[in-house]
């Protein structure tokens, strides 16, 4: 695997993780540079979500290293990881259904690392006017798409350097899928690096600057989106397309 960068923002080395007896991650290695969008692709059970969880500290790694901006985060508790500048948008969305939209957003607030806050409530509402209309509704009453937007906004309010997004388009109507894709691109343009786990290949190829394909708990391919898009064999073997 070639070294793309001298000083990557996120550097994951030889990461292993287990759920009980099952060995889920078997030496995952990849890195994310400043301003990159890296997609993790692969079939279900190949370890993409687990990789994100391990980076976030939600799954304890059994060995390996996770570094953000040179600072070691291996085995750190999730709140430390978050405060170091990584935000996480989980697959299950995990909005706090018993809290209002407003309260959900407040849960995400964290001071920015360079002192000035890049993301504000107003900006969020500008982004998703729908959320402003519903700011006092319980998050449990939102539709799937609205919940997804809420989750993304919530994580942005933590002013992250790096955003981990797990399957943002899952279970959403096709129109909303397009919107989510645009939002991801927009976030990227505002200078946040992103690691994206996505099932829909088209979107992944469109928004990412780099792609990694995972299979059986390892990275089996790393490269540019078009390299992957043109490689029918890879697509067939690892993505079942």
């Amino acid at each position, binding site marked *: 695997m070639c070294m793309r960068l001298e000083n990557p923002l996120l550097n994951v080395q030889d990461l292993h993780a287990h759920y009980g007896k*099952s060995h*889920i991650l078997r030496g995952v290695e990849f890195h994310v540079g400043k301003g990159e969008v890296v997609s993790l692709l692969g079939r*279900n059970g190949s370890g*993409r979500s687990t990789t994100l969880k391990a980076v976030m500290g939600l799954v304890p790694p059994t060995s390996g290293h996770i570094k953000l901006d040179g600072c070691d985060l291996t085995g750190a508790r999730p709140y430390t990881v978050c405060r170091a500048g990584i935000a996480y948008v989980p697959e*299950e969305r995990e909005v706090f259904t018993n809290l209002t939209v407003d309260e959900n957003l407040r849960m995400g607030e964290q001071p920015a690392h360079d002192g000035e806050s890049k993301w504000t409530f107003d900006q969020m509402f500008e982004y998703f006017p729908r959320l402003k209309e519903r700011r006092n509704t319980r998050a449990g009453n939102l539709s799937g798409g609205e919940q997804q937007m809420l989750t993304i906004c919530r994580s942005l309010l933590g002013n992250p350097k790096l955003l981990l997004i797990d399957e943002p388009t*899952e279970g959403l109507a096709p129109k909303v899928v397009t919107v989510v894709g645009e939002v991801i691109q927009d976030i990227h343009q505002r200078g946040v690096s992103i690691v994206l786990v996505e099932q829909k290949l088209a979107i992944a190829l469109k928004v990412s600057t780099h792609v990694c394909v995972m299979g059986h708990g390892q990275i089996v391919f790393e490269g540019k989106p078009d390299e992957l898009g043109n490689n029918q064999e890879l697509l067939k073997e690892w993505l079942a397309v």
Partner: protein
Amino acid sequence: MKYVRYLIAIAIILLGVLPAVLSQSLVNAATQMLIAVLFACAFNLLCGQGGMLSFGHAAYFGVGAFATIHAMGDGSVAGLLPTPMLPLAGACAGILVGIGAGWFSTKRSGVYFSMITLALAELLHSLAPHLKGMFGGEAGISGMRSPAWGLSFGTSTQIYYLTLVWVLASLAVLFLFTRTPVGRLTLALRENTHRLRFLGYEVHRLRVLVFVISAMFAGIAGSLQVINNESANYVVFDSHLSTVVVLNSYIGGVNVFLGPALGAAIMTFFGYAVSDLTRSWLLYQGILFVFVMMFLPSGLSGLRQLWLGVRRSLSVSVLVPIVAFSCVAGLMLIGGVIFSVEILQRIFSQDYQSLLVTAGSAAWPSVSLFGCDWPPGSLLTWIVPLVLVIGGSILVKVVKKKFHTLNEATATPDTEIPLPCAAEDLPDINKLHHVERDSA
């Protein structure tokens, strides 16, 4: 496993000849121990094997006791059953009450189950004093053993043998139970009820069945208690008994069939032996229990497993100093705790407090303990336990570290300690296993 059989045979013979060599009061204590052993094993069928932690098992012990006192007769009225058969009354009562209580409590699992068993026991406890006819009110009911089968049942030796026969028979049945289909399913209940349902089993019915069997043997234990005491009082429903059986079983270790028996025997014996020496026995029991829960989750019987595991990787010559140091550390800690508790107990005792009042403003009088006088005002008095506890803790740390490095050197994987009654943790484990799963 042959040698286990020999051990059991030897134990039975020893138990058989015991009354010949022991004093009257020790025979009584042995009878108490046997009853506690049976009760603990009955409890463990439900808890250790079935994964249902009951905090109200005294209820079934109690109904067994009262059924027996009613069946016993009191000298003027003839009993319903001959004395040696009285435990049958306890067994029946246990079954009947067990069916009702079991049906309710097993509707829920996990902590709910524990709370319901506790509340059911408390229900009986609060109801009993009002039902004079059945439970005899505050005074309780007394009876009298009648001679039967050519035996008088007047001496504690005869009662001992009666108890011994019943306890051994019950333990044998309980052991055989573990080998029956239902016995195997009991373990599966503890492990994973969800899966059991999808294998086609009626989980609720199975749980009730296990509950009833456990209640039945608890009833027999209660019965034996009554045969021994010739009286029963509603106090038997008190939560104390339920608590003690939980403590004893876990101290002994619930993962091994005879673990709870071990715990119950040791604890009952100590309770008897030190009851003249200290008034704080229950406190020690509680401290020991918490200690076991924190550092030895599989109980005293787990020590054997631990030893075997360690022996596999380390040689005896390495182990001897470690064990020796551990013992010293343990003794220091125990000494420190006992010293503190005892001296506090004496200072807070009524005698001492009234002494203080009469002494007025003068310095606090000394307390005598372990043959010495300890002035509470003196620093020295408090340095002793402090040194013991701190020294012991440091030693424990040293031994632990040494042990750890040795273990690492031989590179054996960490043996995971099995969870006691962890059946209800399953949903959580499942949650953790959301490995890229379908949502919905």
